[in-house]
Structures are given as structure tokens and as C-alpha cells.
């Protein structure tokens, strides 16, 4: 059966009651986590990780996909209503949406955000579906030196993208790679860096690292801050001011933004998503900057531009589809969320790579379908049905919320392997991530260094063995040279000074 036919027939599993229920549940969870400042879709999926031991792979991946899509969209809710982006990718939406809120057009702004998210998310899912076979074919041409250079490219881009903190990002990435070396060597059965213990011979599991880094450290950071009563009353006032009928964008406004803007923003978002470690905030920013550059009404940007909202939201939701490409084909996460989804794949015994299209196409169908239907159906439905309630999410009392998260995190760390050691390790990584975050070291590069480090070492050692120690093989091998040139290009593009749009 052809790839497309297999994926589509596999996608029918999405419409079984249980799997569909998990998609809706994931959507609601992602919306909650995306809307509350301080919580993220990454955290939601990290907390979901222990549950995936008990869930079947289809349900787990469907939930992850809908959490990802809804989390990206939900950041626009509090961004618009109370000027606090629920997610970093909603910063540009906060700039424009809150201005509209102040002019009494908050519901209209939310409607535009939802429409753009819907279009961007659906386009991203379709692009993911059609681009996978092409990427899989290209992946087969990449040999061992090229694989090393590809992973090096991914790590360098992730590090350099942390503008202003490149040295700290590099340190965090290297630390992640160091943690990953604990255990058995990548090429021979000898223990390394086990510090005299037998327990560490098994290596460090991804799950305590993820839960500790995203959940425990966040709880520690939130312990330092206090409830803001002004925020709760602002949210209440905002919720009362919104009328459901105003959520539907006016056709004249949509025409003014133009179909081309939605499409271009979606393509930009998808393209940025394919880049390792780029994420929704970069997608939104690049698309927003481009929209402002070519807009006939560029003067409106920063003062309540619906075109700005559309560009940012279409891009950050389309990014969701793009981020899955390097993760599924190469095991290289496109953003922090897909890094955690990679953990879900690994826990379920699935290896990323081109073989997924032939051996696991029936898993990809429901997952891509979840991205598509979450964007096309659930985003507009949830806004219309629950919009005013979502705004009140920020007024949820923090003590029980973060206590619940801590409980789910630690108990989840235990149930995955019934290991007290894993539970303790979760806490250790939580403390480490907290200290790093407080000192300005980005923990996303720590995680990506941990995930990519073993492969980087393995391909480096294999390549030099094949070339009998000659390092010029990285330059003479065409695939490797291509990725090294790409690395140099991205370093140049990301490090040159640029003018901020506002």
C-alpha cells in the first residue's frame, strides 16, 4: 500500500471513541497549560510521560499532538486579554491583541488569533503529511559523516538561537551531553562515568530529566513568586467584557489581511519549525517581522494590528507540523515540545527514522490527524464555547495548582519504573534545572544536548574509524560538507545584528 493510503487508513483510528476522546482531553489539557502563565505545553507533555507507559502508542501520540497544537494557540488568550503571554510564542500577539482589548475589540482579536491558528495548524499538518516521504528519501542519502554534521548543525543552531546567552547555552548543551555519557559506552560494552555505583550503569533515563527539568524546576520557581490579586481581577473584568458573537472575525477584516498573508505565515512557521530547536517564538517573530515589512498598513503594527496577530499565530501553529519532521525522521527535536514527544516515542519502543513510514505509518496517521483536527475543529469550537471561561484560568489559586503538579510529577516519576532511584533523580534534575534557570542557563539546550549527545559521539567515532583518523572526511563527504556550510550560514544569519520590529 502506498504511504499516503497507509497513513490515511491509519488515520481512521482517530475516530474511534477512545482515541478521539484522548484527542479532546489532550486539547483541553494543552489549552489549560498554554493559557496559564508559567505553565507550558512542554510541561503538560512532560507530566503525561509516565502515563504513556499505560497508554497505547496511538492514544499517547494523539494526545501529545493535540496538547502541542492547543498549547501553542492558548497562549494568545491571556496574551490578548491581560497582556500576559501564556506561552513565549504569543509575545507578538500580546503586543497587538492587548491594544485591541483596550479599544474594546478583545473578542475580535481572539477570533483573529483563533482563525489564524486554525489555518496555520491545518496547513502545517498537511505539509507534514506530504513532506515526510520526501524527507525520508533524503534521509537515506545521508551517510555517517553527514549524520554527524547534521547533529552538529542542530546543536549549533539551538545554541546560537539563544541570543544574548550563547556561552551559557553552549555550557548547558555540553552539560546535557556529559549527563548522557553516564552509563554504557556507545560503541563497546563498558561502563563509563558511573562514579563507582552500579545503579548508574543503566544510564540516565530521559524521563526523570524531562520531569525534573520542566516540572520540578518550575514548581521551585513558582514557589518564589506570589499570587497577583490584580491579575485575577483583570481577568474577571476581561471575561465580563467579552461577548461570544464578537469572537467571529469580520469578513472585511479577513479580506484585508488577505489569504496570502495566512499562507505565507504558515509556510514561514513550518520552515522555522523544521529547524532544530527553533520553536514557536522564533516562528511567530520571523513571520510577524515579515508581515510588518510588506504590509500596506505597517504603521498599525504595535497599535493593534490584526494582520500582526494573524501572521504570528498562523506561524506558531504551523510550526507544530514542521517541528515533527526532524524529530520523526532523524530523532532531532524541532523544538522543546517535540523533544519530550521523542521521549514518548522511545518509551513506546519506537525509533525515529525513515523506516517509520514503512513500519509505523498506522501510528503517523492518527497523530497527523490529531494535529489537523485540533487546529481545524477544536480551536474555533473551544473559543466559541469556552472562551470567557479560559480567561478566568489565570485567577486559579496557585498553591493547589502547583501542589497538584508536584504530586503528578513525583508520583509519575515513580510509577514509570517503580524505582525510588528514578524519583530521587527527578528531584536532583529539578534542583539542577532550577539553579541553571536562575543563573540564566537555558534548560532546553540541556535537554537537547542530552538527547543528541550520544548520537553525535557515535557518528564522530564511527566516521573517524572509517577514515582511519583523517578528519578531512567531514569536508570531502558531500552530505557532511552541505550541513557544515548550512551551519556556517545559520550562525551568520543568527548572529548578525538586526533591527527589532517595535
Amino acid at each position, binding site marked *: 500500500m502506498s504511504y499516503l493510503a497507509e497513513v490515511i487508513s491509519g488515520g481512521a483510528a482517530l475516530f474511534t471513541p477512545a482515541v478521539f476522546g484522548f484527542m479532546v482531553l489532550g486539547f483541553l489539557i494543552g489549552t489549560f497549560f498554554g493559557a496559564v502563565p508559567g505553565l507550558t505545553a512542554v510541561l503538560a507533555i512532560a507530566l503525561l510521560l509516565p*502515563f504513556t*507507559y*499505560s497508554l497505547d502508542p496511538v492514544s499517547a501520540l494523539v494526545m501529545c499532538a493535540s496538547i502541542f497544537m492547543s498549547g501553542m494557540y492558548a497562549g494568545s488568550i491571556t496574551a490578548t486579554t491581560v497582556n500576559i503571554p501564556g506561552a513565549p510564542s504569543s509575545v507578538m500577539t500580546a503586543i497587538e491583541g492587548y491594544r485591541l482589548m483596550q479599544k474594546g475589540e478583545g473578542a475580535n482579536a481572539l477570533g483573529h488569533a483563533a482563525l489564524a491558528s486554525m489555518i496555520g495548524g491545518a496547513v502545517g499538518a498537511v505539509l507534514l503529511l506530504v513532506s515526510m516521504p520526501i524527507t525520508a528519501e533524503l534521509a537515506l542519502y545521508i551517510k555517517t559523516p553527514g549524520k554527524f554534521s547534521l547533529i552538529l548543525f542542530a546543536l549549533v543552531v539551538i545554541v546560537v538561537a539563544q541570543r544574548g546567552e550563547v*556561552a*551559557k547555552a*553552549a*555550557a548547558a548543551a*555540553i*552539560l546535557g*551531553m*556529559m549527563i548522557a*555519557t553516564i552509563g554504557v*559506552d556507545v*560503541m*563497546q*560494552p*563498558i561502563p*563509563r*562515568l558511573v*562514579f563507582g555505583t552500579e545503579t548508574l550503569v543503566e544510564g540516565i533515563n530521559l524521563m526523570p530529566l524531562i520531569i525534573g527539568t520542566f516540572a520540578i524546576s518550575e514548581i*521551585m520557581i*513558582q*514557589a*518564589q*513568586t506570589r499570587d497577583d490579586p490584580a491579575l485575577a481581577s483583570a481577568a474577571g473584568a476581561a471575561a465580563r467584557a467579552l461577548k461570544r458573537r464578537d469572537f467571529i472575525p469580520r469578513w472585511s477584516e479577513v479580506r484585508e489581511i488577505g489569504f496570502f498573508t495566512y499562507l505565507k505565515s504558515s509556510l514561514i512557521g513550518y520552515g522555522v519549525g523544521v529547524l532544530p530547536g527553533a520553536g514557536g517564538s522564533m516562528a511567530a517573530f520571523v513571520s510577524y517581522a515579515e508581515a510588518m515589512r510588506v504590509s500596506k498598513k505597517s504603521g498599525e503594527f504595535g497599535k493593534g494590528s490584526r494582520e500582526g496577530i494573524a501572521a504570528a499565530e498562523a506561524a506558531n501553529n504551523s510550526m507544530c507540523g514542521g517541528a515533527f519532521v526532524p524529530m520523526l525522521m532523524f530523532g532531532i527535536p524541532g523544538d522543546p515540545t517535540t523533544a519530550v514527544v521523542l521521549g514518548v516515542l522511545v518509551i513506546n519502543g519506537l525509533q525515529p527514522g525513515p523506516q517509520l513510514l514503512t513500519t509505523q505509518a498506522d501510528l503517523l496517521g492518527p497523530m497527523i490527524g490529531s494535529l489537523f483536527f485540533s487546529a481545524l475543529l477544536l480551536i474555533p469550537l473551544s473559543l466559541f464555547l469556552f472562551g470567557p471561561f479560559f480567561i478566568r484560568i489565570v485567577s486559579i489559586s496557585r*498553591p*493547589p495548582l*502547583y*501542589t*497538584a503538579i*508536584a*504530586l*503528578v510529577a*513525583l*508520583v*509519575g516519576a*515513580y*510509577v514509570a*519504573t*517503580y*524505582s*525510588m*532511584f528514578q*524519583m*530521587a533523580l527527578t528531584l536532583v534534575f*529539578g*534542583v539542577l534545572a*532550577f*539553579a*541553571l534557570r536562575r*543563573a*540564566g*542557563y537555558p534548560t532546553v539546550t540541556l535537554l537537547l544536548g542530552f538527547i543528541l*549527545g550520544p548520537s553525535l*559521539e557515535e557518528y*564522530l*567515532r564511527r566516521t*573517524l*574509524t572509517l577514515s582511519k*583518523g583523517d578528519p578531512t572526511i567531514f569536508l570531502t563527504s558531500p552530505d557532511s560538507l552541505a550541513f557544515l556550510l548550512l551551519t556556517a550560514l545559520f550562525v551568520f544569519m543568527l548572529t548578525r545584528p538586526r533591527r527589532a520590529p517595535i
Partner: protein
Amino acid sequence: MNLLARLFVPISLIVFAVIYYIQAGEIRSLYDTGPIGAADFPKLLAVGLVVAVITAVGLDLRKAGRAERAEPVDWGGVGAALLVVAVCAVYVALFRVAGYFIATTAFGLALLAIFSRLKLNWLVALVEAVVLMAVIYGLFAGLFDVRLPAYPALDLLFGAGPAPEVSR
């Protein structure tokens, strides 16, 4: 942020890198796996970490030198965060010994107290802790059919040694 707070993490990372490098020096390969042995990549990483951290510290101190005013450290907030760690550590230590029900209720109550800065109605907080404990038990043990050590492990309490761990 004062100098001590600013340098705590970098110094810790450098100390870790040194210990890691020494440990890497003790790795012995079983056979030749090419120009880069089992110990070489870890050693390279350790050196890389030290270089990156020193660069980061240099840039940080330069930024701090240009800043008009140093940010004060919120020691109260740091204290609350460390208290969370301490409570989590006690929870992990007592999870099997005291059993899920007792340990989790106490843990929940402690966290609620920390997040509320001790400004809470203790009875309401106890009810919240019990509810959270029950909901999470229902979620894991009920919905996902996961085994939790619900009751105190009398064998651990009276020194019979830990039960063997089950790994997946």
C-alpha cells in the same frame, strides 16, 4: 545579584567538570574502537564545559559592570524554593516507608503551606491535600491501573530491607 550568587552555578559546573574529567581518565577500553576512544569524548566535553562557563562568567561580569544597579537577591524566595526541595526529598524518602496515603497527604499539606507562605486556613488546606491525594490516586491506580505502595511498609520500618525494584 551579588557576586556569590552570580558565581555559585559556574563554580559548581567547573567543579563537576573537573570530577568528571578525573573519572573519564579511569575509563579503560576493551578493544580499539578507532582514533577516538571511550574516554576521549567525555574529556573533550569536560574541557568544553569549563571554557564555555568561563566565557559566560566573563560576559556576565562585563554586563554587571555596565549595569547601573545590581539586582538584589530575593533570599526569601530562594528559601521557599529550597524548602520545596527539602519537602520533596522527605517525600521521596518516606514514599514507600509511610505509604502513599500518609506521605502524599503530608507532602501536599506542606506544599500548600509553602506556596501560601503559611497564610492559610489549615483545615481547608488539609481537605485540599486529601482531595488532591485521592484524585491522583484515582488517576494512577484507578484509571491507569498502576501499583502504588498505598500503606506503610512495615518491613522497611522494622529494618527488613527494601523490596526488590521492578523495572520495565
